[in-house]
């Protein structure tokens, strides 16, 4: 919250776009701003009306370097924009650094994302310490089509203006905490020796010889990947990671997504009855990849590039009572299966579960 808890005295606010950047089509700027306003009006009683020819509560403009507000911009990168807390005159106004590479996608800086953040300030929010929050001070890209206002921001703005008038109160994604005992995972894979845990739009990254766990947005490394990855595995031979969501899969090569992806999972030989994959791991010794869905699993031969005969098989008959598998990976000869907050260590040689742990056991909690 901003010191002094400034807020607008009315819920019905006006905004005006004073000028436009030449780097985007005017319609795209209008759309980005409208979408950014709706981020806040969707979760509060606030409404925003556009005015053209008079003073508005929120005056939006693109500005260069020193622009007479005692807070000069600094050219490309660095400071992207700033906004003033609620109040008369300059209060509520948003200034955007004209020298940034404004875009409507993942290249450069996405105007919608920055605008939504700045409007948070215009409405009275300060910066958040939650790295997943919209109001976190550092820029991070999220596909505008996938953007959901995080719970931290919802809690903040509703503390100032109250809840939305909607019958069903909106909720938002919560930033995963590595040592949260209730933490579960969508997918896990090894990536060049590190363990990558996928959760919503985040990935937790753990290097075996570093104590701390790093939290990042998936979009930081792979802007074109969706959030909510459901399965992933590494093909060490080809230095590729395959990630799966619904009936599609992508091939990751370092920071790049291989061209002509995503492709249908049926190209791997899975039947059309399979709509999604819950978990997958690759056994680098045998070159076989195991795909788990519901209570069955398939085995794929990476060398022959085809499914092995005799599959699917029942998970319980070959791996034991694990239940639905959320994620799996192989490390040091063992397979680690994740079911909710529980983790099973499976020994493929003894063909049995040899240990049961918490899912967060990898994070030095």
């Amino acid at each position, binding site marked *: 919250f901003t010191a002094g808890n400034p807020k607008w005295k009315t819920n019905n606010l006006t905004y005006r776009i004073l000028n436009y950047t030449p780097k985007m089509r005017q319609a795209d700027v209008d759309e980005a701003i409208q979408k950014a306003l709706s981020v806040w009006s969707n979760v509060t009683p606030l409404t925003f009306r556009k005015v053209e020819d008079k003073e508005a509560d929120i005056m939006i403009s693109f500005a260069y370097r020193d622009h007479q*507000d*005692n*807070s000069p*911009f600094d050219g490309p*990168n*660095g*400071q*992207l*924009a*700033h*906004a*003033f*807390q609620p*109040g008369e*005159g*300059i*209060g509520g106004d948003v*200034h955007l*650094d004209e020298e940034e590479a404004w875009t409507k996608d993942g290249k450069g*800086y996405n105007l919608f994302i*920055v605008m939504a*953040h*700045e409007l948070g*300030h215009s409405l009275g929010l300060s*910066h958040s*310490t939650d*790295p997943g929050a919209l109001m976190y*001070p*550092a*820029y991070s890209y999220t596909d505008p089509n996938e953007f959901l206002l995080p719970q931290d921001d919802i809690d903040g703005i509703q503390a100032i203006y109250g809840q939305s008038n909607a019958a069903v109160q909106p909720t938002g994604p919560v930033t995963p905490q590595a040592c949260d005992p209730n933490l579960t995972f969508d997918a896990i894979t090894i990536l060049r020796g590190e363990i990558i845990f996928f959760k919503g739009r985040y990935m937790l990254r753990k*290097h075996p010889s*570093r104590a*701390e766990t790093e939290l990042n947005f998936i979009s930081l490394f792979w802007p074109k990947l969706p959030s909510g990855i459901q399965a992933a595995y590494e093909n060490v031979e080809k230095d590729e990671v395959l990630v799966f969501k619904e009936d599609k899969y992508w091939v990751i090569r370092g920071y790049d997504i291989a061209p002509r992806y995503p492709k249908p999972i049926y190209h791997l030989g899975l039947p059309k009855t399979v709509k999604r994959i819950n978990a997958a791991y690759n056994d680098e010794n045998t070159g076989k990849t195991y795909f788990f869905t519901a209570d069955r699993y398939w085995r794929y031969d990476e060398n022959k590039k085809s499914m092995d005969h005799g599959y699917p098989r029942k998970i319980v008959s070959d791996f034991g009572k694990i239940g639905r598998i959320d994620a799996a990976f192989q490390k040091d000869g063992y397979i680690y299966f994740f079911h909710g907050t529980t983790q099973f260590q499976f020994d493929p040689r003894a063909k049995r579960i040899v240990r049961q742990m918490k899912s967060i056991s990898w994070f030095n909690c």
Partner: protein
Amino acid sequence: FPVPPEAEDEGKTLQIVETYLQNFYNLQRDHQPHLRNKSESPLTAKLKEMQAFLGLEVTGKPDLDTLEMMKKPRCGVPNIEQYI
């Protein structure tokens, strides 16, 4: 893990740190800029404040993670004293 850059000279590091803390943490421009000073200088105090806020390890020193965070594009903090 990230390979530390060649020994970035202390002057350049100090410049990055000072500018960042002046821009975003209200570090006064006439503070005493010793990074190695034992008693906590205003700069070290502001550095710790920044590290704590952004979820970094609070060392009071411009370590790799801190410098990397300082180079990230971010929202500015307008100087509103004259308006208040």
